[in-house]
């Protein structure tokens, strides 16, 4: 419509044609860019939904090295639940997960509280505490494997210094090896916990600090009784994030212990990869992946639901 109206006032035909062409080009570009944007967005949705369903589907088929879409029901799930490696992996995950989350949370909180004491060189210290987060788990695992290796690490050092019977061989000890993974993971993640806790403490109202001080409480009691409870939502959020990190841990184990000795440090994520690419069983590997996802959802969904209810309440009252 507008094109026709405009053209009526256009005296010079050449200019008119150019103007029409320009407008047409602009409109085409507009349509093109918009459709392209929608296409890209649609591809993300197809990727996330499609790949999830695809893996679920493969988990109920016979697929080995190549996909084979014959339905076999929940065979892989049943076998996996009975497989020793899967059970051991979950026991390992339980030990590793609880120790990692507890220690990272405690170390992170201690560091955050100490840094909150109006100290000098705060930036330098924070940079030092957080830098492991910039490294790949492969590098963390490789270097900690040297330090913890009895024949070239701490144990060797102690022995060359004259402490001949010194023993620190967790890395090759079936019962203790899982704690070497804990050490490396806590080393990597504590700074992250610290940063979030510190941000929480700093966001608290100054009046809260003053009120706590007027109350005559000592510094440590002030934190335990008043300030840490005040950032409780952040503490819970950090613990949930760490739980996710624990469930997804894969590279660190591979670089640090390769799952050994035996399967003493194998975690569910390692089992998934093992089935898929070492034993050549896509079906079983996918079933393991789906169970890993289910474990994650069991943790996350209740948390997400509570968050949603809370934010809705806040809107209602606000």
């Amino acid at each position: 419509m507008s094109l026709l109206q405009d053209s009526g006032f256009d005296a010079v035909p050449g200019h008119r044609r150019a103007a029409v062409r320009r407008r047409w080009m602009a409109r085409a570009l507009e349509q093109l860019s918009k459709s392209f944007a929608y296409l890209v967005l649609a591809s993300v949705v197809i990727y996330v939904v499609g790949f999830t369903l695809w893996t679920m589907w493969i988990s109920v088929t016979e697929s080995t090295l190549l996909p084979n879409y014959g339905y076999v029901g929940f065979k892989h799930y049943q076998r996996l639940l009975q497989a020793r490696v899967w059970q051991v992996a979950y026991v390992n995950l339980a030990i590793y997960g609880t120790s990692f989350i507890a220690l990272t949370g405690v170390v992170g909180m201690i560091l955050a509280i100490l840094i909150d004491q109006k100290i000098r060189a705060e930036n330098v210290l924070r940079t030092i505490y957080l830098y492991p987060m910039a490294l790949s788990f492969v590098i963390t695992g490789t270097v900690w494997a040297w330090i913890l290796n009895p024949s070239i690490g701490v144990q060797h050092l102690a022995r060359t210094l004259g402490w001949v019977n010194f023993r620190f061989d967790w890395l090759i000890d079936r019962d203790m090896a899982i704690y070497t993974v804990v050490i490396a993971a806590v080393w990597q993640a504590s700074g992250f916990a610290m940063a979030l806790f510190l941000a929480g403490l700093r966001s608290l109202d100054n009046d809260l600090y003053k009120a706590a001080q007027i109350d005559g409480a000592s510094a440590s009691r002030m934190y335990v009784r008043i300030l840490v409870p005040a950032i409780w939502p952040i503490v819970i959020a950090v613990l949930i994030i760490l739980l996710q990190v624990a469930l997804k841990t894969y590279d660190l184990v591979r670089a640090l212990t390769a799952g050994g000795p035996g399967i003493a440090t194998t975690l569910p994520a390692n089992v998934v990869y093992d089935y898929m690419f070492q034993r050549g069983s896509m079906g079983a590997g996918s079933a393991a992946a789906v169970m890993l996802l289910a474990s994650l959802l069991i943790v996350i969904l209740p948390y997400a639901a509570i968050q949603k209810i809370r934010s809705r309440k806040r809107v209602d009252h606000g």
Partner: protein
Amino acid sequence: MDRTLSAGYLGRRFVLYAVLVAFAAFFLIPLAVVVINSFRTLEEITQTSVLGIPRAMRWDNWAQAWGSYCLAGSCTGIRPYMWNSVALVVPATIISTLFGAMNGYLLSLWRFKGSNFIFGVVTFGVFLPAQMKLVPWAITLRELSLSNGLSGLILIHVVQGMCFTTLFCRNYYVNVPADLIKAAKVDGADFLQIFCRIVLPLSPPILIVTVIWQFTNIWNEFLYAITFSEGSHRPVTAALMAFSANIAQAREYGIESAAVLLAALPTLLVYLFGGKYFLRGLTAGAVK
């Protein structure tokens, strides 16, 4: 009274700093170990452990790690793998960031029916473990014959990265005042013009966060890298694993230390110079 108080205060400050420094030492030890060992000879390391001070500086470790050390059968050092990582990270970061900005713009400022649902799917994609996508990727890459090269990995990181970049940008653009966009629409500005003239100029902070996040994550990524690349096409994290899995020869800890440092250097530098943005990304991408 005053003196005892200040003595107690000084004592507490001393303990406080002692604890802070002790923790700093704990975090720095692994870094110190690789830095120091990169200058030590293998004999020295095996004699006195990886926790020692060099008696004589050995610079040659660095040259060998970079250019001539043998891993997985080829004696090229870490150099070609570093370049592989660069060739992977640069395009994947740029493309995924651009697409993410566009997606975020669509989801926040051009809301349509179902845009909230799509945002939910994107968030789920951020949180979905990589293991859920490995088999479909394996099949897809095989169909496209991209299984063992860098292009397959670039495709993976663009698509996978888009979940993060979309999330970041959407959450940032949500705070752009709707009136600004409305006024622009009334003035006759269209989809592309609003994006280029209004949204992008507002975006540098979030784009920096996104680029740093993508760069660090893709550089450090291991699972896809080890699964979908082989031999001379491996990115550096995957090649490092070949280093340590190499049991045919004695472990050259000095050279390996230099190699580990070289591989860690890009992300460490990004962290040192963009720390604030790095931390913001960590907080925003924490659902990972």
